[in-house]
């Protein structure tokens, strides 16, 4: 999963699109996934996700993302199978309706996560914040909170990796099944939390010292006009949501 949420440099039309439209598109795909009840449409959404990834020049990354999400989706699928009791039994504890619902649930989950992650990979967090403040009139504090949260994800990941390395070097044996891994990783939340709180506290003080409170809507120098790709994208948004509700 490492580095999948980080921004990938590029100059495709997706990179140049208005950040707000990209956010809207991602949210719409997400909404469509939740609204739809058709397996075919959900699969189509996945295909659109991959196509958008390819258009943004990050097809490989999109595939790795998909592979990662598939693992989580599989877990959802199995859990759903275990607990869904309606319909005709197929074999053992599996029922036909159960299998269908589980497949939909897993696909929905993947189709809803993909666009958001891809959007983050193709938009600078700074641009997203600025556009939210300038165009969407979101107060800077809230926009900043969002971007700070996003920016901290890769940091947490590398910190967690560091903590695990440090513990492995002391003799904690991380090889083994997932249950053992979870049991071993739990105490590691202590150093991770301590490091993170210290870091966040530090960033907050640093931001304050550089005049965080003085920042207003006019502080950003960049404007975010709508480009040629933005109107069709907005139309795609509407179409997707509509289709999602119908199917």
């Amino acid at each position, binding site marked *: 999963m490492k*580095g999948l949420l980080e921004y990938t440099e590029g100059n495709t039309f997706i990179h140049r699109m208005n950040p707000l439209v990209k956010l809207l598109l991602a949210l719409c795909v997400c909404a469509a996934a939740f609204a739809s009840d058709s397996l075919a449409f959900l699969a189509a959404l996945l295909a659109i996700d991959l196509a958008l990834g390819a258009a943004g020049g990050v097809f490989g990354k999109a595939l790795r993302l998909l592979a990662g999400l598939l693992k989580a989706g599989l877990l959802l699928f199995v859990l759903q199978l275990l607990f869904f009791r309606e319909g005709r039994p197929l074999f053992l504890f599996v029922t036909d309706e159960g299998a269908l619902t589980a497949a939909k649930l897993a696909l929905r989950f993947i189709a809803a996560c993909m666009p958001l992650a891809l959007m983050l990979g193709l938009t600078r967090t700074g641009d997203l914040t600025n556009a939210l403040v300038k165009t969407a009139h979101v107060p800077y504090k809230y926009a900043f909170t969002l971007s700070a949260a996003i920016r901290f994800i890769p940091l947490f990941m590398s910190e967690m990796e*560091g903590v695990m390395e*440090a513990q492995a070097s*002391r003799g*904690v*044996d991380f*090889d083994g099944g997932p249950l053992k891994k979870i049991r071993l990783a739990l105490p590691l939340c202590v*150093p991770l939390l301590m*490091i993170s709180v210290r870091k966040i506290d530090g960033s907050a003080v640093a931001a304050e010292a550089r005049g965080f409170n003085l920042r207003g809507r006019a502080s950003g120098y960049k404007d975010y006009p709508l480009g040629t790709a933005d109107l069709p994208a907005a139309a795609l948004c509407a179409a997707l949501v509509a289709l999602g509700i119908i199917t």
Partner: protein
Amino acid sequence: MIRLERVCYRYEGSGAAVEDLSFEINRGEFAALLGENGAGKSTVAKLIDGLVKPASGTVTVAGLDTRKTKTSELAKRVGFLFQNPDRQICKNTVREELAFGLELRGLDRAAIDERVERTLRDFGFDGERGPFTLSRGERQRLALASIIAAEPEIMILDEPTTGLDYRECMRVMEAVKGLNENGATVLMICHDMEVVLDFARRALVLSKGRLIADGAARRIFRSACAMEKASLSPPQITQLSLRLGAGFEEADTVGELAEAIVKRRRAV
């Protein structure tokens, strides 16, 4: 004790961190690993500890090939002090923290208690303190103490003195020196040349992932070329003795230099 043979390693998505690196460190040596920021020192340390495995070449530690040995197995022989001590500390009291590494080694309760008490005494810690209320220097010393308590055969230190004041720095280094005198092999990454000159007998200089110099620390400091390449500046006393020229070049400590000057004055 530690042997690297033609080792290469690169991180995903960046250039080579370590390239064609070979060296050997014998039992009981105290060696320093020097080099500019990003030279690959921490990577070498992780290679030796088995946290990363070489892409090609072999790393042998205490006779074990790191690629064929589990990290937890190596951890029984190698102690590793990280650049950031907070990554190591994970218990609620100093006492538990010290005991944790020993429990992982599978020592019995009595032996653990005995060693923990001894370490608390040696380092002057209060066993009931919460580790995260300690100062930066104290946390560094705690991380070091919990490694020393396990009595490793090999000790790797990644910048043990960075950010410490002179007194804390000396306390940390005295502890390491004590371990070395008891027979442990020490490899220390350090940016403080005075500390290197005072404690390490051998120095290896790394630049851009390659070994550019290896030998007695005091010799290396006199090689302007290697020092320049690795963005290092020799200790002031070495600079001074080099400037003074003939008759003084051999002096590496304040004492030696003073002696040489006194001798010269008598001669005049």
